[in-house]
């Protein structure tokens, strides 16, 4: 039980653009047992029905772009970045 509790991480997620609209909010705090950013997206996609597959996204942790398989730790702020279209 103690071990399982340690694996639960508190994560903040920021949503932008189509993800923000599909989630219906810009930011949420959640607890998760998954290990990587990519796994977190899959979990959230299953729950909220995001239309974009993970292969179309980049991820940032604490304002740094990170690989899709980057490990999560408690307290991380995660952003999923849909294809950008500035300019």
């Amino acid at each position, binding site marked *: 039980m103690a071990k399982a509790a340690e694996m639960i991480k508190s994560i903040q997620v920021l949503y932008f*653009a189509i993800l*923000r609209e599909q989630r219906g909010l810009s930011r949420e705090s959640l607890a998760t047992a998954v290990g990587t950013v990519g796994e977190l997206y899959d979990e959230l996609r299953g729950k909220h029905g995001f*239309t974009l597959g993970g292969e179309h996204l980049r991820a*940032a942790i604490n*304002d740094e772009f990170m690989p899709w398989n980057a490990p999560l730790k408690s307290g991380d702020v995660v952003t999923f970045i*849909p294809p*950008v*279209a*500035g*300019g």
Partner: protein
Amino acid sequence: MFKLSHEPLDPTALKAALANPQAGACVTFEGWVRNHNEGQAVRALEYEAHGSLAEKEGAKILEEARQRFSLVAASCVHRVGTLALGDMAIWIGVTAEHRDAAFAACRYLIDEAKARVPIWKKEHYAGGSSAWINCARREV
């Protein structure tokens, strides 16, 4: 300097900040809101940005341009919020002693900014529909 702006961009002031007697060439790029895109009549745009990450990535792109090209100065400002037809979405200004570097760096900056900076565009069409561009097109 890479910045986001909620206010209309002021290219005259932005360019004045680049004035420098070392520079012989100044190339600017402005992105304007077009009245059409891929056959649809556009009536307005929204730009949304991840502010902190966008300014960080933008600063990185400017630093890359300074490393690659012999520049005097370079800056870039991107508008966020709701834009009307003809409004300026992005302003990039580059100065250099010679035009080769100024053209190449300006082109590098707009290409990299479009590819990498976390800014998203939603087009609102004349018919009332809208779509996030490049963002798995869907009508909302």
